[in-house]
C-alpha cells in the first residue's frame, strides 16, 4: 500500500518534470505549429518534419560529425579519467591531492568559455600557440578549427566525468582482490587489466556513457570551434534552426527526437551490458586502502598530472586572462603579446558597470542551490527506489528518469516553455521554473552518479540494520546515507556546477528578473566582445572555484565528523 503510493508519487513528479514536456516536444515535432499559440490540437499531425530531416544530407553530415567528435572525445576522456583515478587512488604518486584537484577542474569551465579559450589558443590564423611557435622559429602549426580540434577539446574537458565515477569506485574497492591476483603471480599491469578495471566496469561504462551523452548535448565548444570552418554537429544544427528568422522549432524538435532515439539506444545497451552481474565491492568487512609503490615511476605519473593541468587549466586560463585584460585581441607577434601598454582593466569596469552582472550572479547561485538540494534529494529517492527496493514500477521510474539525458538543452528549453507556461500559479517568470528545468534535465546525471554508490553498498549492511529493528527510513538514515554520503555530496556538487553552467534550457525560461550568468555570458559573446566574455568567464570560474572549494571543505569536515562518530 505504502509502496504503491510512493511509486505513484514518484511517477507523478516524473510525469510533470519529464513526460509532459516530452509529449509537448513530440507534438511539436509532429506538427508545424507552436502548441501554446495554436492550441493542443491533433488535427495537423504528420511526419513531414521527420521525413524532411531524415532526407536532409546536412543532418546526416551533422550526425556523422557528432559521432566522430563525441566518440573520439569519449575515448580520450576514458583514457585520461581512468589513468588519473588510478594514479590518485591507487599509487604513491607525490602531490596526489593536487592531481585530484586538477582532474576535476575542467568541470568548472562552461563549454562556451572552454571554446572561447581554445579559439584564442588554437586558431590557425591568430592563435597564441601558433604565434608562440612562430616566435620560437618553429615550423609547427595547430588548427583547432577542425574535427580533430573538437575531439581533443571534448576529450580533455569531459575526462572528469569518467574520473568522478571511476575514482569513487576504486576508492570503495577492497584491495584484497588485487592482492590475491598479485600473490597468484600476476604483474601489476596484468592485475590492473584483469582485476581492477573489470571490477569497476559499471563505473567505467557509466562514466563513458555519461561523458558521451554530455558531449552530444554540448553547444558552446562546437559553436565556437566549428563555426569558422562550417563544421556542424547536431547541437549547433539545432541552434541554427531555432535561431533563424523565421525559426524552425518544429524541425528542431524532430532533430532532437532523432537524437533522443540514438541516446535511448545507448542507455539500453549499457543496461544490457551491466545487467545480471554483481559489482558489489563494499561489503561488511573491514579493509585497508593500499597504495602501489611506483618507485621512480611516481615522478612520471606526477609529470602526467602536471601536463594535464597545463593543457586543461593553465593554458586556457592564460588565454582568458590575456583576453580579459587586453584592450584588443589583435596580436601581431609575441612582442605585442608582452606589451604592457595593451593591457587594462577596462573590460572588468565595463561588466561591473552593468547592473545585470551582479543580478545574474545572485540568480545563478540561487538556482544552483535550489537545484542541488531539491534535485539531489529527488535523485536519492529515485536511486534508492530503483536499486534498493523491489517495488513494482521501479523499472518505469528508471526509464523515465533517464529520458532527459537524450534531449539537448536548447530543445528542452522550448519544451519546458511550451509545457509549463500555461500552468496557473505563475511558475513562469520565477527562479523555480529554471530550477525545475535543471532538475529534470540533470536527473539522469545525478541518478547515475548516485547509483554507483548504491550498487557498491552490499545489502548485508542494510539487512543488519533491519535485523536490529530499524525501519526503512531509519536504515536509510543510519546506514545508506552515511555510506553513500561522498556520492550524495558529489552528486549535489555536480548538480550545482551543471546548473550554474547550463545555458541551453535557460535561454527560453529566463525573464528580466531571473537572468542567470550563463545567459549573460552568451550575451557578451554574441555581442561580439571577446574581452568582456573572457573577463566575465574569469569571474564565473573564480566564483565557482570558491563556492565548490567551500562546499568541499565543509563536506570534508562533515565526512570526517561522521567517521569519528562511527569509528
Amino acid at each position: 500500500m505504502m509502496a504503491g503510493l510512493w511509486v505513484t508519487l514518484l511517477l507523478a513528479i516524473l510525469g510533470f518534470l519529464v513526460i509532459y514536456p516530452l509529449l509537448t516536444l513530440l507534438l511539436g515535432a509532429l506538427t508545424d505549429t507552436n502548441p501554446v499559440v495554436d492550441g493542443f490540437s491533433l488535427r495537423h499531425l504528420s511526419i513531414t518534419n521527420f521525413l524532411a530531416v531524415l532526407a536532409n544530407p546536412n543532418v546526416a553530415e551533422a550526425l556523422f560529425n557528432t559521432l566522430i567528435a563525441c566518440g573520439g572525445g569519449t575515448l580520450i576522456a576514458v583514457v585520461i579519467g581512468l589513468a588519473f583515478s588510478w594514479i590518485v587512488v591507487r599509487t604513491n604518486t607525490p602531490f596526489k591531492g593536487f592531481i585530484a584537484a586538477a582532474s576535476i577542474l575542467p568541470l568548472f569551465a562552461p563549454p562556451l568559455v572552454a571554446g572561447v579559450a581554445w579559439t584564442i589558443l588554437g586558431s590557425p590564423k591568430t592563435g597564441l600557440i601558433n604565434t608562440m611557435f612562430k616566435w620560437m622559429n618553429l615550423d609547427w602549426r595547430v588548427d583547432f578549427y577542425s574535427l580533430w580540434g573538437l575531439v581533443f577539446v571534448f576529450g580533455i574537458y569531459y575526462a572528469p566525468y569518467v574520473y568522478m565515477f571511476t575514482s569513487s569506485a576504486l576508492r570503495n574497492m577492497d584491495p584484497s582482490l588485487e592482492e590475491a591476483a598479485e600473490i597468484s603471480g600476476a604483474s601489476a599491469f596484468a592485475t590492473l587489466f584483469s582485476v581492477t578495471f573489470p571490477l569497476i566496469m559499471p563505473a567505467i561504462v557509466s562514466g563513458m556513457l555519461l561523458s558521451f551523452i554530455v558531449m552530444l548535448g554540448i553547444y558552446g565548444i562546437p559553436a565556437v570551434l566549428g563555426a569558422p570552418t562550417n563544421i556542424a554537429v547536431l547541437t549547433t544544427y539545432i541552434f541554427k534552426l531555432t535561431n533563424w528568422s523565421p525559426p524552425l522549432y518544429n524541425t528542431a524538435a524532430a532533430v532532437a527526437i532523432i537524437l533522443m532515439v540514438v541516446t535511448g539506444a545507448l542507455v539500453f545497451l549499457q543496461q544490457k551490458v551491466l545487467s545480471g552481474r554483481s559489482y558489489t565491492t563494499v561489503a561488511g568487512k573491514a579493509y585497508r586502502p593500499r597504495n602501489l609503490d611506483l618507485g621512480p615511476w611516481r615522478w612520471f605519473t606526477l609529470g602526467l598530472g602536471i601536463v594535464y593541468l597545463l593543457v586543461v587549466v593553465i593554458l586556457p586560463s592564460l588565454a582568458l586572462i590575456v583576453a580579459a585584460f587586453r584592450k584588443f585581441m589583435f596580436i601581431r607577434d609575441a612582442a605585442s603579446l608582452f606589451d604592457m601598454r595593451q593591457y587594462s582593466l577596462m573590460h572588468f569596469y565595463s561588466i561591473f558597470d552593468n547592473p545585470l552582472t551582479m543580478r545574474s550572479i545572485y540568480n545563478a547561485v540561487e538556482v544552483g542551490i535550489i537545484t542541488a538540494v531539491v534535485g539531489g534529494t529527488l535523485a536519492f529517492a529515485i536511486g534508492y527506489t530503483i536499486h534498493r527496493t523491489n517495488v513494482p514500477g521501479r523499472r518505469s521510474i528508471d526509464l523515465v528518469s533517464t529520458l532527459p539525458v537524450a534531449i539537448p538543452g536548447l530543445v528542452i528549453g522550448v519544451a519546458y516553455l511550451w509545457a509549463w507556461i500555461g500552468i496557473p500559479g505563475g511558475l513562469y517568470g520565477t527562479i523555480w521554473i529554471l530550477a525545475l528545468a535543471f532538475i529534470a534535465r540533470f536527473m539522469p546525471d545525478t541518478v547515475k552518479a548516485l547509483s554507483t554508490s548504491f550498487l557498491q553498498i552490499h545489502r548485508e549492511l542494510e539487512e543488519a540494520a533491519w535485523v536490529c529493528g530499524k525501519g526503512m527510513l531509519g536504515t536509510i538514515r543510519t546506514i545508506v546515507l552515511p555510506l553513500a554520503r561522498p556520492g550524495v555530496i558529489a552528486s549535489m556538487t555536480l548538480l550545482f556546477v551543471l546548473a550554474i553552467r547550463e545555458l541551453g534550457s535557460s535561454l527560453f525560461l529566463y525573464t528580466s528578473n531571473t537572468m542567470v550568468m550563463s545567459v549573460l555570458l552568451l550575451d557578451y559573446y554574441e555581442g561580439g566582445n571577446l574581452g568582456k566574455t573572457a573577463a566575465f568567464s574569469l569571474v564565473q570560474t573564480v566564483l565557482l572555484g570558491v563556492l565548490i572549494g567551500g562546499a568541499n571543505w565543509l563536506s570534508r569536515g562533515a565526512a570526517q565528523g561522521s567517521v569519528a562518530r562511527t569509528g
Partner: protein
Amino acid sequence: MNKKMIARIVTRFVTMAGIAGLGIALNGAPASAQQEFGSPELIAAAKAEGKLVYYTANFAEVEQQVIKAFNKRFPEIKVEMVRAPGGQLITRVKTEAAAGKLIADVVDHSDRALMVDLIDMFQDYAPPNAADYNPDAQISPKLWPRATLVWSIAYNTELVKDPPKTWMDLTKPQYDKMTGQVFAQSGGTTWTRIMFERQVLGEDYWAKQASTHPILYPSGAPMADSLVRGEVAMGPLLYNAIYPKQKDGAPIKIFFPPEGAPVNPYATGIPKTAAHPNAAKLFLNWCLSKEGQTFMIQELGNLTSLKVAPVYPEGFDPKVVKVWLPKFDDYVKLHAAWVADWDKTFGYRQ
C-alpha cells in the same frame, strides 16, 4: 485617432516647439524640459509605475547604454531588459502572449516582416513627434522605428594595406579568403543587405562574392570581434556593431560605400497587455525623440528614420552616401526564395 489624442499630440508639439525655441540644453534640464517626452500626467503616471520590461532583439550591451541614457533623464524608472536573437524573441513573445503571460511592456524587433503577424497584439501608440518620422520606415501605425541600423564596410588596418573602396571591391580575387559575411538567414538586417546586393549590385553579385570564400558568421557582433582579432580582414558590417570598437581604438577603418548603404528600421511597439503602459510610452517617447535618436546616432552608430536627421554618424556624408530602404512588399514576399538562393550560392547548409 480620437479627438483627445490629437489634442494631446498637438499640445506636445506646441510644448516641444517652445522648448526648442528657448534652446534649453538637453542634459540636466529641469522638469519642464521633460515635457518634450510626454505630458506631466504621463510622466507622473510613468514614475508611479516605476519600471518597465523591455524585450529587444538588439545587442544587450548596446541597449544597456540606451537604458543608461534614458535613466539620466528619468532616473525613477527602472528598465528591465530581456534580450534574445530575432527568431527566439518572436517565439517567446508569441508563446507568452498565447498563454496570457506576456511580460513585455515594450517589444523591439529587427525583422519587421516577423512583426506583421503580431500587429493585433499591440496597442495604439504614437510618439509626440510622430509627424517627423518617415512613413516608409513603418509597417503599421502602432509600430515605430526606434532604432535604424545601417550597413557599412569595415577592414582591419593592420592586415589590409590596399583596402576596398566599394561593394564591388569585396568581390576582388585578391581578397580571397580574407572576407567575412553574416549569413542571410540570421535576421532582418542581413536580409536587407542581401536584398540590396541582388537588387542594386547585380544578380551575379552573390556568386562573385561567394567565389572569394568568405567565412560565414551567425551575427554581426562575433564577426566584428573576429575582424578586430584578425580572423577576417574585411567585410560588410552593421555600423553599430563595429563603430564602438573603432571608437575604443581598435585597428579598424569603416566606410559607407558609394553604391549605397542598406538601412533596416526596427519595429517597436507596446503590447495591449503591458502592465506598465505609461512607463513604456515614456521610454519609447524618449527613444524616438530628437534627444534619444541623437544619442543613438552619436554614441552607438545608428542612423535615424526621422525625416530630418539631427546629426549623422562619423564618416557618414549624406551628400555622398545613398541610403537604401527595401520595399516592404519585397521584404516580405521575396524572403524565403531569396534566402534559399543565397544559401545555395554560398554553400551554406540548411
